[in-house]
């Protein structure tokens, strides 16, 4: 699952996932009927509208051994919220399909560490980075230190501690526009902490959060780039970015 | 007292029943976990009480009367409950004083029912030697005698020792507040000094 945001705005992240997984010997497919995990609808309260989207999701990913996605948030929605949507749809067949699919959904770092059993993915990234553990990865999925363990094995990479790392960046989906001022206040503090690390690159496992923090860092002309974890892990000495 | 009370009762209980229609009433409560044993429960208690900036002194039974006397400032007006096992020369025994009368006392000496080591808590059940709740509240200095054999490791050990029909006061250090910038400051309405004599 590439996710709708990555498909539309961050194709490089999707391509990095494909590159990385193939390098690790995984057979990768992109079922073209996939669209979105329905999280925007669910988290804004539009459950009726989420039902056909979740139906499409389970149909698109039926029959695969694993559904891997470079987003803690979308993985969290599939694992924890699709069942709520299925209940709303009052469709036992959909509920059964959701149960079967959601158990096979993995956030990228989970898939690498837990399923493939690797932490050294052979990456090379000669930059100073700091890592923001996004809330849904951290608290909804409990990915723990998996992304850090992966980053620590990237050659050339210097990891700087992010102060108050586990505080939310303030993105929060439609929260970012419904409560834009509070969202920006939270994001500004996050951006300040990022700048304080002196890192060149802010890395995270969710491009939605990175869009928000990156938008602030860019407006502040901080010079800090935001890069998805997948793109760093996909980088190799031959093709260093 | 208010006429609405009876229909209110029936209506609230009716709403509760309707709200819970189809909900299974039995619920298995998981047991609350116990802390790992500490080697010296009494020392642990002393340390934890002192953590609240209470004064903690350990003494033998023989030295207790002297310890109490030393804990009371010279010339202090002292009130004691009926049934206190330690003599306090010059103290007045509580005779059902009013709150205003109690406000004229500088200190109170009481015993206790239980000491809880992990949380540094003293529990009074206001029996003999402890007195009415008011006497250990209004005077500014509380000298409290806790026997070492009254100290238990943690809260779950204390509850079975307490009679729920009696009133209890759980005391963990002197009166304090965190209301100004969430910083703890000792000394508001309750006794500003808590002096604990721990009798071995």
């Amino acid at each position, binding site marked *: 699952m*590439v996710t*709708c945001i990555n498909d*539309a705005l*961050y*194709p490089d992240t999707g391509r990095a996932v494909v590159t990385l997984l193939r390098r690790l010997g995984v057979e990768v497919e992109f079922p*073209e009927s996939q669209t979105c995990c329905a999280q925007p609808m*669910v988290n*804004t*309260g*539009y*459950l009726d509208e989420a039902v*056909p989207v979740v139906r499409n999701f389970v149909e698109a990913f039926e029959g695969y051994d694993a559904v891997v996605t470079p987003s803690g948030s979308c993985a969290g929605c599939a694992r924890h919220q699709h069942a709520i949507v299925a209940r*709303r749809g009052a469709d036992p067949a959909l509920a059964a399909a959701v149960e079967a699919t959601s158990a096979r959904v993995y956030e990228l770092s989970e898939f690498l560490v837990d399923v493939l059993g690797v932490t050294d993915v052979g990456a090379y990234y000669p930059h100073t980075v700091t890592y923001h553990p996004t809330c849904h990865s951290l*608290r909804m999925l409990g990915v723990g230190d998996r992304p850090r363990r992966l980053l620590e094995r990237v050659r050339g990479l210097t990891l700087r501690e992010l102060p108050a790392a586990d505080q*939310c960046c303030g993105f929060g*989906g*439609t*929260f970012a526009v*419904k*409560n*834009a*001022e*509070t969202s920006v206040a*939270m994001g500004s503090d996050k951006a300040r902490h990022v700048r304080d690390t002196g890192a060149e690159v802010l890395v995270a496992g969710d491009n939605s959060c990175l869009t928000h923090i990156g938008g602030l860092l860019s*407006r502040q002309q901080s010079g800090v780039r935001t890069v998805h974890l997948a793109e760093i892990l996909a980088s190799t000495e031959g093709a260093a970015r | 007292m208010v006429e*609405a*009370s009876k229909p209110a009762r029936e209506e*609230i209980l009716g*709403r*509760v029943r*309707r*709200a819970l229609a189809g909900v299974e009433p039995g619920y298995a*409560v*998981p047991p*609350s976990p116990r802390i790992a044993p500490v080697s010296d429960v009494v020392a642990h208690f002393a340390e934890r009480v002192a*953590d609240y900036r209470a004064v903690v002194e350990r003494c033998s039974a023989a030295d207790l009367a002297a310890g109490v006397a030393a804990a009371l400032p010279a010339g202090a007006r002292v009130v004691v409950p009926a049934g206190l096992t330690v003599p306090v020369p010059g103290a007045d025994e509580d005779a059902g004083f009013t709150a205003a009368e109690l406000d004229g006392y500088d200190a109170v000496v009481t015993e206790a029912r239980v000491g*809880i080591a992990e949380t*540094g808590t003293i529990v009074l059940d*206001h029996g003999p030697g402890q007195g009415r709740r008011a006497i250990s509240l209004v005077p500014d200095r509380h000298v409290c005698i806790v026997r070492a054999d009254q100290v238990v490791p943690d*809260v*779950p050990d204390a*509850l079975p020792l307490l009679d*729920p*029909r009696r*009133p*209890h*006061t*759980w005391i*963990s250090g002197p*009166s*304090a*507040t965190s*209301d*100004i*910038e969430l910083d703890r*400051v000792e*000394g*508001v*309405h*309750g006794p500003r000094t808590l002096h604990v004599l721990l009798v071995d």
Partner: protein
Amino acid sequence: MSATFVGMPAFPAAAHAALGNAQLRHNLAHATGTIRAKRQRLVDELDASCSWEELRLAGAGVKESALVDLGTHLERLEETLTANGATVHWARDAAEANAVVAAIVKAHGVDEVVKVKSMVTQEIGLNEALAAEGIAAWETDLAELIVQLGDDLPSHILVPAIHRNRAEIREIFLERMAAAGRPAPADLTDEPAALAAAAREHLREKFLRAKVGISGANFAVAETGTLVVVESEGNGRMCLTLPEVLVSVVGIEKVVPTFHDLDSLLRLLPRSSTGERMNPYTSTWSGVTPGDGPQEVHVVLLDNGRTNALADEVGRQALRCIRCSACLNVCPVYERTGGHAYGSVYPGPIGAILNPLLKGVGHDDQVDSLPYASSLCGACFEACPVRIDIPSVLVDQRAKVVDAHRGGRPKVEALAFKGAAVALSDSRRLGLGERFTGLGLRIGRRFGASKWTSARDLPPAPRESFRAWWRRTEGGGHGG
């Protein structure tokens, strides 16, 4: 306190004012930062000796076991309280509860009462109701006193004056104490110890003469008819012990089945609340104790929307809340906006679910805005000592807000989501390829992209979408 939350604007508008107040944000960041660190240290300490998670499960279990059989426990509580010499009253709503309390106070011919800090009496507006009957209700908790003297509104469950720093508190005491009784000393400094001493002197005369005390309760034990009040300053002991008459207003969700059930809750609450192993004072009483404390004891059992919450399958868990305020202290939204923006005595994450559950959604924009006052980061659930899954309840309440507005004229947002649902339920409808890139931006624009771009840049649109690349290169097999 003449200030009131009535007529507060919806959350985003209320937050606007708070976000612009640098002093407020500084006060909040300092206070919540302090308490977060203290709480975490004690949670870690306990976890090293047993298991914080198991303790949470036990605490949640106790409250859950009470709620799933609430009718039985309430009837038992009434029976035991009555047997212990207390008088039990029932109140369906705020007006009924206030009338009961006012009638008791008037029956004793007094024109003032002393109060222990109690969320429920704030919820029902008891002070204002008593004032209308010519009865002065003196708040005796330090923070409540600061709020009352300052003609202000509470902004935190535990520390209602958290938005005030020491210098502001000094000003309030110097200016306002005299009109309410004993004035503050003229040489008052802003040292917290000096401020606390001023409050001690000011309130002591009120404690000593009070005939009627009013409290809430943290817990009400059904089996034994025991009420429990957890506090720090000793003002609670004063109000519960010195007056001749004690009236306790208790929400029906405060009941726990047995005395032993207090174990996990008394271990969880202070650590989660003030970041202490135990709070300075906990008082328990079971009706009337002859010769000790109030000889006339009343308990008012209050619904005021709690049965609405109880009927909500997902939201019911909010009634487990023990009002520790840990969720406020860890909430990144609360830390920036403060409590007033929530327009209720229950602010923060718990307020964002409790208010709509108690009041119902679909008829007040302010209440309807609260479930959206969260980024769903989950820090509240992680901190909650009774494991209330606040993010899940928030999401469920959002669905209830949306559902309550279905059938009327749809808002722009509803139309956008209906459109998105059609587009996203079948990739062929997206027109595939490049056109997909535009979808996200189109939805974004409908939502008001200006709200995004006022402070944040948007990323540059890519040359082609992922799916366009996949098609062009046949799955990355060539080119790209």
